[in-house]
C-alpha cells in the first residue's frame, strides 16, 4: 500500500488548496492556512516520539532479538560490552577496555565499576556470563545464538551437550575472560549486537514484557501494536539522556506515519526510497531531510547450482544486461550507490577502484553465446511484495528479455520467498541484507561463504574454494591492514564470479522535525539511542 502515500501527498495538496480557497472566499483572512498546511509549531511535550517501528516488537528480551523493532527497543534498555555509534563505529560500553593475549584467542574484558541495573542491583562480570548462557540456552528458544558461537564451548552448550561454556570465565567482579575457538579479530563488534546485551541475574518469565537493563532508557510501558514508552535513566553510566522520555510508536502504514509527522506528533520519519523525490522537491520539506549511507545491500541472489546459472559467464551476462543505474534513479529516487561487490562504501575493505558492471547488452549477449546459450535461457526471478521489490523485479525482467533471458516472475510474501530461497528453489531471489555489525565480514561471510549455504544467508549457494579460503583467512587475521586487504581480494573474487546480481547500497533518508536537536540518522539500526536528542523550543520573544 506504499503507493497510497503518493496519493496522500497529492490529496493533501488538494485539501490545502481548497481550504485556502474556502478561507479566502469566506473572508476569514485571520485564519492561518499556512500553519495548518505547512509544518507545525514546536509541540508542547517533553517526550521524544519515534515513528519508525511498523510492527510490534517480538519481545523486549535481548535473547529474542531477531527483528528490527525488537533490536531497537533492546538497544534503549540494555547495554552490551560494546556499542555502535550512529555512524556505525564500535566503542566500549559496559567494558572500559579489552586486550587480546598473544595466543590470538583469549580476550580479557575490563568492565565498568559502579554500574547499576534499573532495579538497583549492581552489574558485575557474573551477569555477562549469565546473560550469554541465557541467550545460548536451548530452553530460551531464542534462535540468536550465533554471535556467541566463536566462544569456545558455546555451540556445544547451545546444543545441550555440555552444562557450561568452557571459553567463558569470570576472573573477578570487573573482569571477564573469553576464549575463542580460533582467532576472530572482529569479535568485539559482535558484542554490540542486541542479542548479546547484558541482563540481570533474575529474569522472571515475563522478562520480555518487563525488561530491566543498564541502558540509557528505563522501560515504562508497552501497549502492544500501539507504543512503547521509556523514561530517562538518570543514573546512566555514560551520561543520562537529555530528554525526559522516549516513545516508540508502532505505525504499520507509511501514509499514516507521514500524516503524524506533518501533524507534528512524531519527531522523525523514515522516508522510503520511492517517496524521496516528492520530499526532496517540496520546498517546505526539503530542509527537514537528513541522510546517511546505510549498511544495506539490495541484490538478486543467483543460485549458482541451478542449470545455466552454474556458469559464471551467464551470471556476468545477467549483471551486464541490467541497467542498475536507471533502476536506482527511477525506482529508488537515486538513493544509493551502485554495487560492484558486497562491501558497502562506508566499510573498510570497500574498493573504489572496483567498478560496477556496466550496462552492456552486446557483451552480455556475447557471454551467453560463449557459454553455449545463443538462444538465451529461461529462469525464475523471485521477489517479495515489500517496498519497491516487485517493480524492480519487473524492470529486471524487461532488461533481461533484451538479451534473450526469459524471466518468469514469482511474487510471494516474504516468508514463503525466504523459505524457497533457503531451500535452493529460486533461480534469482531479489532481496536485501542489513548488516548486524559494521564489518565487511558481515557481508562476505554470511552471504557468500560456503559454510553458510542456505539458512546461514548464502542463498546463492555459492561455493568457491578460493573465495572461502580468503574469507576464512581474513576472519582469523589479527592485523587490521592485512585483513582489509583480504576483504578487498574476496570482494574482487565475488565481483568476477558474480554469484549475485549486484544492485545497490541504500542511502537512508529521514525527515527530522526542526525542533529535534541532537538526533543523528543512524547507519546501523541500533546506532542512535536518542541520548543526545532533545526538543528545542524557540526562545520566547522579549516583551515589548
Amino acid at each position, binding site marked *: 500500500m506504499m503507493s497510497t502515500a503518493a496519493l496522500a501527498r497529492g490529496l*493533501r495538496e488538494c485539501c490545502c488548496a481548497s481550504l485556502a480557497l474556502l478561507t479566502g472566499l469566506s473572508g476569514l483572512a485571520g485564519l492561518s492556512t499556512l500553519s495548518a498546511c505547512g509544518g507545525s509549531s514546536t509541540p508542547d511535550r517533553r517526550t521524544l516520539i519515534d515513528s519508525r517501528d511498523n510492527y510490534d516488537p517480538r519481545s523486549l528480551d535481548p535473547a529474542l532479538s531477531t527483528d528490527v523493532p525488537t533490536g531497537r527497543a533492546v538497544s534503549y534498555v540494555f547495554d552490551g560490552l560494546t556499542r555502535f555509534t550512529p555512524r556505525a563505529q564500535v566503542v566500549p560500553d559496559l567494558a572500559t577496555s579489552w586486550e587480546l593475549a598473544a595466543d590470538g584467542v583469549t580476550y580479557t574484558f575490563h568492565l565498568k565499576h559502579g554500574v547499576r541495573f534499573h532495579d538497583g542491583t549492581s552489574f558485575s562480570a557474573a551477569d555477562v556470563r549469565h546473560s550469554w548462557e541465557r541467550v545460548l540456552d536451548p530452553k530460551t528458544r531464542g534462535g540468536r545464538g550465533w554471535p556467541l558461537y566463536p566462544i569456545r564451548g558455546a555451540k556445544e552448550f547451545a546444543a545441550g551437550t555440555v552444562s557450561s561454556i568452557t571459553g567463558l570465565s569470570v576472573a573477578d567482579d570487573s573482569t571477564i575472560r573469553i576464549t575463542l575457538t580460533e582467532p576472530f579479530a572482529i569479535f568485539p563488534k559482535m558484542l554490540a549486537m542486541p542479542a548479546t546485551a547484558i541482563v540481570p541475574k533474575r529474569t522472571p518469565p515475563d522478562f520480555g514484557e518487563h525488561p530491566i537493563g543498564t541502558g540509557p532508557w528505563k522501560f515504562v510501558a508497552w501497549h502492544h501494536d500501539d507504543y512503547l514508552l521509556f523514561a530517562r535513566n538518570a543514573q546512566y553510566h555514560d551520561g543520562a539522556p537529555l530528554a525526559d522520555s522516549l516513545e516508540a510508536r*508502532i505505525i504499520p502504514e507509511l501514509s499514516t506515519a507521514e500524516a503524524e509527522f506533518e501533524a507534528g506528533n512524531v519527531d522523525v520519519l523514515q522516508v522510503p526510497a520511492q517517496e524521496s523525490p516528492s520530499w526532496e522537491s517540496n520546498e517546505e520539506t526539503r530542509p527537514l531531510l537528513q541522510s546517511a549511507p546505510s549498511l544495506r545491500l539490495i541484490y538478486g541472489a543467483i543460485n549458482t547450482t541451478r542449470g545455466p546459472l552454474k556458469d559464471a559467464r551467464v551470471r556476468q551476462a545477467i549483471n551486464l544486461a541490467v541497467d542498475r543505474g536507471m533502476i536506482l534513479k527511477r525506482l529508488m529516487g537515486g538513493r544509493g550507490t551502485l554495487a560492484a561487490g558486497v562491501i558497502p562504501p562506508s566499510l573498510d575493505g570497500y574498493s573504489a577502484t572496483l567498478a560496477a558492471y556496466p550496462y552492456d547488452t552486446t557483451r552480455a549477449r556475447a557471454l551467453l553465446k560463449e557459454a553455449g546459450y545463443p538462444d538465451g535461457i529461461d529462469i525464475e526471478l523471485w521477489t517479495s511484495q515489500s517496498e519497491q521489490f516487485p517493480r524492480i523485479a519487473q524492470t529486471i525482467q524487461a532488461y533481461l528479455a533484451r538479451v534473450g533471458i526469459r524471466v518468469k516472475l514469482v511474487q510471494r510474501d516474504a516468508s514463503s520467498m525466504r523459505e524457497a530461497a533457503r531451500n535452493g528453489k529460486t533461480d534469482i531471489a531479489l532481496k536485501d541484507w542489513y548488516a548486524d555489525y559494521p564489518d565487511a565480514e558481515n557481508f562476505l561471510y554470511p552471504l557468500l561463504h560456503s559454510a553458510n549455504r542456505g539458512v546461514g544467508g548464502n542463498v546463492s549457494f555459492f561455493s568457491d574454494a578460493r573465495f572461502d579460503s580468503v574469507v576464512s583467512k581474513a576472519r582469523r587475521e589479527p592485523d587490521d591492514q592485512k585483513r582489509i586487504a583480504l576483504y578487498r581480494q574476496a570482494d574482487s573474487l565475488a565481483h568476477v564470479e558474480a554469484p549475485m546480481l549486484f544492485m545497490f547500497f541504500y542511502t537512508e533518508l529521514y525527515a527530522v522535525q526542526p525542533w529535534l536537536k541532537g538526533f543523528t540518522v543512524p547507519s546501523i539500526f541500533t546506532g542512535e539511542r536518542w541520548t543526545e536528542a532533545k526538543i528545542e523550543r524557540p526562545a520566547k520573544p522579549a516583551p515589548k
Partner: protein
Amino acid sequence: MTIYIIRRLLLAIPTLFGVLVVTFLLLYVAPGDPVQEMVGERADSATIARLRKELRLDESMSSQFTHYAGGILRGDLGTSYITRRPILSDVLERFPKTLLLAGTAMLFASITGILIGVLSAQHPDGWFDRIALGGAYLGISFPVYWVGLLLILLFAVTLHWLPPSGYGGIRHLILPALALGTRSVAFLARITRSAMLDVLNSDFVRTARAKGLSERAVALKHGLRNALIPVITVLGLDFGYYLTGSILTETIFSWPGLGRYVVNAISRRDLPAIQGSVLFLSVIFVLVNLLTDLAYAKADKRVSL
C-alpha cells in the same frame, strides 16, 4: 427458547471443529516456515532443527493435530512461536479494542443509515432521496483505506481537529469509526429505504392512515418496526464485515486491535497465533449469528424459535 439456544450452541461444536481442521490443514500446506521466522535472517541448521523438534514441527501431521486439538479441549490456545506469550491473553488484550471500534462504527452506521433510509422513504424520488441515493452509491464504492486517508488528511493534518492515528480516548475513535462505518451507512440506508417503501405501500399502513394517525406515527410505529427484519439481517451479516474490515481500518489508523494481530501472525507464520485467533473469531461469529436470530424473534412476533 432456552432449548433453541442450547440446540444452537451444540450445533456450533461441529462448526468450530470444522474451522479447527480447515485452518490447521491450510497452514500445514501453506508455504513459509515458522522456525525460519523465529531465527531471523541469519541462522544455523542445528538451531533450526532443535527448534523444529521442540515445537513438534518434525512430527507427523496427525500427531501435531492431536496435540494441538488436545490443548484446545483443555482451553489452552497455546503459546506464540514468535513472542512466546500465551495466545489467549494476546487475543483478549486486543479483541475489546476491535470490538470497541466495530461497535462504534456499527452504532454510527445503523443510526445514520436507518435515519437516512426512513427519511428517503417519506418522499421517494424527492430531493433528499436523490441526494441520499447518490451519496449511498459513493459510500459503497469508496474503499475503506481511501476514506480513512481522506479523513486523516482533512480532520487531522489540515484542520488539526483530531489525532491522525493511535489508540486513546473518544478523539482517537471518531475517525476510524467513521471510516469503517461509511460503507455500511450507505448500505443500510438503501435497505431501510426499500423495506420502508414496501411496508408503507401495504394495506395495514393504508388503514393506519385512514384511522387518522399522523405521518410520523405511521412511519415509526407501523413502518419502521416492520421494515426492521431485513435491516437486522444486514446488520448481522455485516458484523463479519466489521471484524474483517477492521483489519484495514486498524492498519490505516494504527489501531491496536485483533485484525493487525492476525495479519502480523500470518506474515510471521506464527501458527498457534493464527489458529487461535481464527478459532476465537469463529466463536464470535457463531454467537453473533445466534443473537441475530434471537433479534428476529424480538422484532417479529410471527417468528417462533
